[in-house]
């Protein structure tokens, strides 16, 4: 039996009629499918389509309102991750569940034996881990502390953890979201070995290229429903995209444009260390009018520090930060706003909005202290509501009205309100930190088009994103950030994704000193 021809293979997992509600939201609507031995199923769908919910039900984190899960013909009791583990289901979560202060081996053994067993890391276990690592091509040192590993290595530990527990069914939730292109290739090699050894894999993703490459069958989820099931060999990216969003999507069009003068210049900028996040080291950056600068990089390489710096939350400890019209004031969120910097924060729930404030109150969060929103300390709620109504209309924010609490809105509509709030101030510089994370495709297109329109109107846009495709599609110039250092700027089309991937993995930084 080859790993592609699985038509007659034994069914290892059967989901039928899985339904799950969260309040008014129907997250999963009577979903059912079979997984056979030795195949890779891709579960494709936009953010919020219900992929993660479905897998959490399968693994026992959630209890379904209706429906059953059968593993190797045996029904799985709902709500017991331990039962799922025991029956051979292993899950690699989007956010890793590893103890940073323990070694790789201890992390793998954790929970597999009694807490009071005398020697946690005995020779037999070590040998088994080494053998698994070799068989599956998961190179990682068993005695390394997990805290010191890279994201890609941590993912290998997660996979080893599942394999050590004799997982026969592996669920990978958005495994490539945090990987460089090279790490992704390595992961796919591992998965192919696993399938050849008879494992079955459910691969959750919203990236079409990866789905086409790794899977033998594709299940498409949309708004909690299973809307399509096709053999990967009989479809293409285009048709999958259509199935996923229900309509064809157009790539954003960015017309050529001659950049204007520099609006913000960083020269040799360093910032202070904050917790575990890397600080900026000798960063040179120039934001020019009418240009989108893309910042590519694997998550946690100093993106937050750069965003905090430009957003006014941090000041440089060394180096210069010059605005086109520098007035030499203390650097703060207010002075950033006064300098015409619009800030779209990375986390719209925690830093972008006040959940229990109304849309009106959220709309004026950055402008409440000035006329017309307030005069001499007295609020003008009429003006504030008028402003909120204008944003709701211009930016197509779907909501019950300006007095509704913003926590009732979907992520996309929340983001549109934030977008309206910052763009209505006619900014000269736009700091867009992960502006489309977690949005559906309709909202993604909307946000991208607004950013392009602002750039065409002469604003300088700094786009920070972990999605390399997004960065390459939109940016006029791309910098790669790695451990707080910035690569030189690469103009559009001068570097292939693979070359950028090498920079994202740190190549090119060593010999160049700081950002040559």
């Amino acid at each position, binding site marked *: 039996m080859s790993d592609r021809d699985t038509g007659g293979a034994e069914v290892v997992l059967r989901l039928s009629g899985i339904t799950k509600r969260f*309040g008014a939201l129907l997250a999963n609507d009577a979903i059912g499918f079979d997984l056979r031995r030795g195949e890779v199923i891709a579960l494709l769908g936009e953010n919020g389509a219900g992929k993660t919910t479905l897998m959490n039900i399968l693994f026992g984190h959630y209890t379904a309102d209706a429906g059953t899960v059968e593993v190797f013909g045996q029904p799985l009791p709902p709500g017991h991750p331990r039962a799922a583990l025991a029956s051979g289901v292993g899950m690699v979560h989007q956010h890793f569940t590893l103890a940073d202060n323990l070694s790789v081996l201890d992390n793998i053994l954790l929970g597999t034996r009694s807490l009071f067993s005398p020697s946690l890391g005995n020779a037999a276990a070590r040998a088994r881990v080494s053998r698994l690592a070799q068989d599956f091509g998961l190179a990682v040192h068993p005695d390394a502390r997990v805290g010191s590993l890279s994201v890609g290595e941590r993912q290998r530990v997660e996979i080893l953890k599942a394999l050590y527990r004799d997982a026969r069914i592996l669920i990978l939730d958005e495994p490539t979201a945090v990987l460089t292109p090279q790490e992704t290739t390595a992961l796919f090699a591992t998965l192919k070995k696993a399938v050849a050894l008879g494992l079955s894999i459910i691969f959750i993703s919203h990236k079409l290229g990866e789905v086409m490459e790794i899977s033998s069958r594709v299940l498409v989820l949309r708004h909690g429903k299973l809307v399509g099931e096709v053999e990967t060999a009989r479809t293409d990216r285009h048709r999958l995209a259509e199935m996923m969003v229900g309509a064809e999507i157009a790539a954003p069009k960015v017309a050529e444009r001659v950049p204007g003068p520099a609006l913000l210049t960083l020269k040799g900028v360093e910032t202070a260390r904050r917790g575990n996040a890397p600080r900026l080291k000798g960063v040179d950056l120039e934001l020019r009018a009418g240009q989108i600068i893309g910042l590519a990089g694997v998550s946690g390489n100093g993106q937050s520090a750069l965003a905090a710096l430009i957003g006014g*939350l941090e000041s440089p400890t060394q180096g210069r930060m010059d605005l086109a019209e520098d007035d030499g004031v203390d650097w703060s969120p207010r002075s950033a*706003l006064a300098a015409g910097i619009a*800030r779209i924060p990375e986390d719209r729930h925690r830093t972008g909005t006040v959940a229990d*404030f109304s849309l009106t109150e959220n709309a004026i*969060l*950055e402008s409440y202290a000035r006329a017309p929103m*307030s005069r001499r300390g*007295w*609020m003008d709620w009429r003006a504030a509501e008028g402003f909120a109504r204008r944003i709701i209309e211009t930016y197509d924010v779907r909501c019950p009205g300006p007095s509704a609490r913003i926590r009732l809105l979907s992520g996309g509509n929340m983001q549109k309100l934030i977008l309206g709030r910052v763009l209505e101030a006619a900014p000269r510089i736009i700091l867009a930190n992960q502006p489309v994370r977690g949005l559906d495709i309709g909202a993604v297109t909307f946000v991208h088009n607004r950013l392009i329109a602002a750039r065409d109107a002469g604003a300088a846009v700094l786009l920070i994103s972990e999605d390399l495709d997004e960065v390459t599609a939109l940016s006029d110039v791309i910098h790669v950030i790695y451990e707080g250092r910035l690569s030189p700027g690469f103009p559009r089309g001068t570097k292939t994704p693979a070359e950028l991937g090498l920079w994202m993995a740190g190549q090119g930084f060593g010999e160049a000193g700081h950002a040559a």
Partner: protein
Amino acid sequence: MRLEPIANPTLARRIVLPAVALALTVIAASFLALLAGANPFATLGLILSGAVGSKFALLETLNRATPLIFTGLAAAVAFRARLWNIGAEAQLYAGAAVTVILGTGALGLPAALLLPILALAAMLAGAAILLGPVLLKTRLGVDEVVTTLLFNFIMLLFVSYLLEGPMKDPMGMGWPKSAALIPEARLPRIVTGLRLHWGFALALLAAVAVWVIQTRTTLGYEIRAVGLNAEAARFAGIPVNRVMVKTALLSGGLAALAGFSEVAGLKGNLTLDLSPGFGYAGIIVAMLALLNPLGVVLSALFVAGVFVGADSMSRAAAVPTYIADILTATALLTMVLALRLTHARVRWR
């Protein structure tokens, strides 16, 4: 178990749940009365009539509510910004002490001038007491629950020292009490002959003022933003620490007015038993009102009524006044739970 939010609770839900809370409170009280060997219905009847059954009782309740409105507002203002001021007791005594220091002859002014000066001085003293803890919080991250709470004991001991030493009334027969306020420093009665003084009107005015600040001013907007999501507030450019300090000054000033009003309106001098825990009761008042300044007036009247009614009841029946503490505590717990459940449904798995 988890809670599922209800977007628009029905009218029935809004009425029935608080009613159930009230019923549970009454049942708890009845049970205690039974334990004490009294007839529960008679006990509750006596509490009710003792609180609002006569003109005298009603005025007594209003008098007792006055300091509770001030301390309730102090807690409500601070808690909105997530500034946990547990030190209203200290601020109250600071206000009272300053009122006595300036109001026993140090300033010889007509009442129309002296009273506003005393009120203002008291507010400044209360604000100053809270300034230390709030600066420790914003500068060094010291937990204000601990510092404000400990300040209560420091202040009480300090007042005790004042009353045994420099402020001791030479005519006081050796009792630890201050000299009496001069007549110009006394808050007049609202209606001649009745015990209710202008402090109550001042308290109502303060409640309206706090409501206006919270809903109509930029400071109120800042306070609410900081309390609901300090990280988003800081990101948006709201000066979070400065807002904290302003909130503290307002809160401390309000608590100090309770001391001013008790001394100038009711007692006429300062003793160590000026406050039977008004500062702490203010927290209950504020929570019961869900931090709404106008609601604080209502919940202060309720708490005051229970205490005044229980005092009167215990004189008539052989049930200890401690029942009042239990009644207010039960009312707080059940009411907060009821209001939470008005907007959410419990799901067992």
